[in-house]
């Protein structure tokens, strides 16, 4: 999922079976922003149709993001740091803030902050997430934040690394903030 140029005519050629494709980064693995925006639009309308309210819709988007996040975690670690995984919370958060954001959205996230009122709350902000760039939210759903999708991705990365997390707030358009509970594993 990156912002760069589109794939060429290979979309009509017969694709090799999944176990024989190359995992390394390359031009053939990149997708255009317009294709992604189109897909995201459809995901949103599907979620709107199937859900009963704003909370429900955010949960659905978060679930979509969760499935993406699990695979993203494995793939990014495989490509960028083979053989090593993060065990400490701050390392995982920094990893999300820089590497994950850069791989998925083409730029690192704007800020990583530690919440002041809560010991275990952290915030990752992105001032213009490009998946939601083309989404217009109607007034009656102004509480909705499509960043729930991104939140799902972050939650999956944290979950996979062994930290229980619960999203505490998605400020529309900007922040994704999380309560991260570390189950006492790190010293």
């Amino acid at each position: 999922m990156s912002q760069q140029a589109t794939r060429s005519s290979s979309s009509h050629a017969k694709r090799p079976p999944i176990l024989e494709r190359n995992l390394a980064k390359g031009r053939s693995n990149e997708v255009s922003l317009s294709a992604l925006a189109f897909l995201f639009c459809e995901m949103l309308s599907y979620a709107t149709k199937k859900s009963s309210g704003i909370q429900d819709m955010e949960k659905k988007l978060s679930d979509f993001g969760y499935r993406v996040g699990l695979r993203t975690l494995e793939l990014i670690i495989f490509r960028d740091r083979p053989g090593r995984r993060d065990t400490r919370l701050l390392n995982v958060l920094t990893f999300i803030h820089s590497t994950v954001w850069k791989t998925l959205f083409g730029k690192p996230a704007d800020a990583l902050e530690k919440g002041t009122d809560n010991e275990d709350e952290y915030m990752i902000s992105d001032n213009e997430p490009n998946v939601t760039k083309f989404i217009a939210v109607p007034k009656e759903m102004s509480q909705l934040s499509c960043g729930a999708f991104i939140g799902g991705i972050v939650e999956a990365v944290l979950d996979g690394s062994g930290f229980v997390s619960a999203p505490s707030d998605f400020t529309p358009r900007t922040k994704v903030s999380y309560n991260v509970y570390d189950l006492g594993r790190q010293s």
Partner: protein
Amino acid sequence: MSSNSYFVIVGTRDNPLYEAEFGPASRGDGGGHQKKDEHKHLNQFIVHAALDVVDDLMWGTNAMYLKVVDKFNEWFISAYVTASGTRFMLLHDAPNQDGIRNFFQDTHELYIKTLLNPFTETNATLTSPTLDTKIRALARKWL
């Protein structure tokens, strides 16, 4: 190349996602065959017991390949942990660190490719026959 091994991929809920046994191709004498059948069910128990050790070790180190983590009679258990907490366990009788490390890395790559299929659920058993063939080929190559 001729050691007996038992390979399991264990999910995050301690459920086996994939199991395979590798060993020498020919099993000539009936006596030897019977002995192996008796120990087959033990393999699951041995690996399950070793999961606790892996759980302790995996948080202490950044590495994915945790070499030999446990020993049972004459069998060694080697482990490899992926970024999302899936554990690859190999029960073998001859320690062969380099070959095992390469085997784990190649199997990890196959696992990621399988995972990228949006129709695989998390913690679902991996039943693809192509995957099975490929893992057996890797075992012949590295073990």
